[in-house]
């Protein structure tokens, strides 16, 4: 299974997926920590993938979503953005609306 197929499967199997550095309880980077706190403050269950533990995914996901940095958030199989966009959408209420859609 290629890394792109592995990522595709993760994106399809998890409604809310956060590619991050470290784990939600032990984030290894400030941007990833911010992304986790945003999702936790919205009280939404999410699947986290630690790209530090999986270098193949760490590089592959940048190509997959055409985005140069980590963390990366996916909702309903769509790439939403990194921690800056998450923060902007969180503050504008867009993120909450996106999560409410069934």
């Amino acid at each position, binding site marked *: 299974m290629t890394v792109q197929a592995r990522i595709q499967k993760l994106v399809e199997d998890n409604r809310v997926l956060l590619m991050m550095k470290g784990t939600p309880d032990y984030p290894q980077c400030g941007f990833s920590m911010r992304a986790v706190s945003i999702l936790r403050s919205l009280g939404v269950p999410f699947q986290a993938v630690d790209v530090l533990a999986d270098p193949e995914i760490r590089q592959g996901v940048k190509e997959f979503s*055409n*985005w*140069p*940095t980590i963390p990366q958030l996916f909702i309903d199989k769509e*790439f*939403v*953005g*990194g921690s*800056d*966009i998450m923060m*902007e*959408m969180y503050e504008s209420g867009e993120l909450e609306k996106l999560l409410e859609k069934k």
Partner: protein
Amino acid sequence: MFSAQRIQVLVETALPNCVADVRDDANDGEHFSADVTSSAFVGLPRVRQHQMVYAALGDHMKRDIHALALKTYTPDAWKTR
């Protein structure tokens, strides 16, 4: 080392009627922040807008630029920010 000025030139030449205000906050040639306005952003979700800016920077984004805190605006959004 990279410079705010080089980022500005790359972005402004790649995007139509674009204004890029780029700052080297830490003055270290690696961590930048930028406000980018372009008519190309009209009707696009934020993530697409940001991807266009990253595309303008090409490999520099992988090699030279460690972090780029980006805010993108359509011309109207910029006037009413």
